[in-house]
């Protein structure tokens, strides 16, 4: 009995180590943020940016079949002490009306309609002088930098699924018979738990890495 148990535990350790060695993220077709430029517009601090590789073939095909995709943009403005002075989350929806044959790109307060996907891609895949915060609320001599991240949910939130997929059924296990031996259990999938921590820097194919801008002063910005 002890021999069987020892062999079993040895197999477990060897396989776990193998999983650790071979778990490595890939970088093909990764979503990137480029050409981030902070400006002053109408007494506001504003930012422009372009998102590259946001629309994979799968996402384009899903949009063209009539389903909505949601783009989520996270923008943080931090001071040189690494503290957030401003944080904004922008949700943008892209959909295609297969009967009217037109695309709709919707932000919180505006919806723009276009007939070509290239136009929808251009509208959805960039920020153009997005007003963030009145300049008066920022220290004029202070140093700041921008952190930005963008993700696209092909159908719905994938981040939530990713955070929970290493947990299997954390609730009471279903009872199938009138059992004499009632139990409540939990299960943790070790492989998914390991890969969750190992690949936490990678996030997902649908989310970019954090873009961090060089440090700037308000007085340095173009109007």
């Amino acid at each position, binding site marked *: 009995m002890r021999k069987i148990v020892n062999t*079993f535990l040895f197999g477990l350790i060897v*396989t776990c180590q193998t999983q650790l060695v071979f778990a490595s993220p890939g970088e093909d077709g990764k979503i990137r943020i480029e050409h981030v430029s902070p400006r002053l517009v109408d007494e506001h601090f504003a930012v422009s940016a372009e998102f590259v590789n946001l629309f994979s073939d799968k996402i384009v*095909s899903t949009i063209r079949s009539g389903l909505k995709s949601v783009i989520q943009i996270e923008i943080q403005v931090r001071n040189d002490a690494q503290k957030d002075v401003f944080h904004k989350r922008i949700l943008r929806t892209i959909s295609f009306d297969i009967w009217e044959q037109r695309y709709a790109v919707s932000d919180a307060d505006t919806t723009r309609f276009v007939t070509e996907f290239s136009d929808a891609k251009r509208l959805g895949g960039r920020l153009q002088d997005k007003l963030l915060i009145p300049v008066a609320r920022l220290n004029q001599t202070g140093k700041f930098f921008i952190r930005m991240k963008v993700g696209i949910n092909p159908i719905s939130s994938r981040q939530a*699924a990713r955070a929970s997929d290493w947990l299997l059924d954390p609730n*009471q296990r279903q009872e199938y*018979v009138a059992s004499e031996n009632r139990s409540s259990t939990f299960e943790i999938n070790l492989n998914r738990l390991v890969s969750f921590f190992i690949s936490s820097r990678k996030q997902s194919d649908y989310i970019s890495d954090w873009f961090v801008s060089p440090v700037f002063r308000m007085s340095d910005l173009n109007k």
Partner: protein
Amino acid sequence: MTNLRTPISRHLSRRLGYLTGLLFIVFFLLNPNAVRAQVESQQRKLTIEGIELVGNKKTSPEVILRDVDIRPGTRVTPDEFADLLLRNRQVLEETNFFKAVEVFSRPGSERGKVVAIIEVQERSGPFFQFEGGYNDLSGWFFIPASLRFDNIFGGGNRFGARFLLGDRLNKLSFWYRNKIFREKVILDAEVYGAGKMFIHYFGQEKAHQDVGFGGLRVKLTGTGRVGQHFFMGFRAENYDPKDTIDLDSGGLLPSADLPPDIADDLQEANLQALSFGLLHDSRDNPSYPLTGFWGALTGEIARKEVRETNRISNFGKLTFDARIYRRLFGRQVFAMHVKAGYGTPDSPFYERFYLGGANSLRGYADRRLTPAGWGTKLILTNTELRFPLTNEGFPNHKATGVLFFDSGGIWAPGDTPRIKDLYGALGLGVRYKMPILGTMRFDFAFPLNDIDDETVRFHISLGQTF
């Protein structure tokens, strides 16, 4: 009176009907967009043209599609289609057959048609789980090494091995699970070897006895609308109880001093049992039911053969277990559990019923109310009023409060069940959802019978009581 009321009510209902119709006409005249939207929403549905599977090199399409409820030809709105895709992604993820599941879509062969795309990433090897929990008979247990080979050959098979270390149980088991007979039956099989510690009470004296056992268990559960209500099982096991009992106060209780119900079952024996049962589940949410019913009736006939003497005896057991849930005003839930069991007097003590504990009758220690030699007749009721303590995400909220009343009785062979033999307890508790562990349960139970001079007992466990 009825004759007078009928014409008046008819008149009023006719008037009410006209008024409602008029209001609708006015509403639609004032809101032409609403009419348009109404018509458009009825017309603008997508027709699912088909399903495309991507990435399944070893897994047959049947194994994937047996769990999927996307039906070609169905007409759905874009939102319904998105929900359908996401729901099926979750179902496929929960099979554990794949490392990752993605769902997409593409336009179909003509306008208004759409094709669902399911992309899977297959597992290339086994995976490991860490498990743990609480069990009435075994106490707290952990499974530090659970190895699983789900869908390793692509046929939708699940098999694995697990090594369990517990408070009162150690067990090594190998198990197999698959759907057979054209997906109409779920087969569960387990081969195992284990050692379990049984707790006995002789009056105020607590004692424990080790019982080694092992064997094979097979269970067949139906699927489909009718089949899901039936199950049957078979087990062939070997039991080897230790012939002495250790008293918690120190010393041994030799077999000569044991009650006959235990002394008769101290020899190594082989046991074969056939079980059958009926099952019904209409709960709206198994982890936190707001309404519905869960009930099972299980019967078992068994044959026991003592290895040394070849003496054969037969015994049987019938167990009824039912839970009912009703949502009261607002978010409160009334929940009730009833369990009744009967075993024939020839059943060995390790096959009999127990009473007392966190999942049984709260307010008393695990199995504290069980007679020496264990019981062959059992009745247990748990009644709870559940109310959320936090509102966010209800009914998947974080914290729940509970007021409960438990009552039950247990009788040894030859004893006649009487009302005055019933035990009871009142209490209150909190259930709190924790990451990884799931729902933690904390109960303060006040026993209504004076057994151990205790005024309150604290139980900690996992999940809802029932």
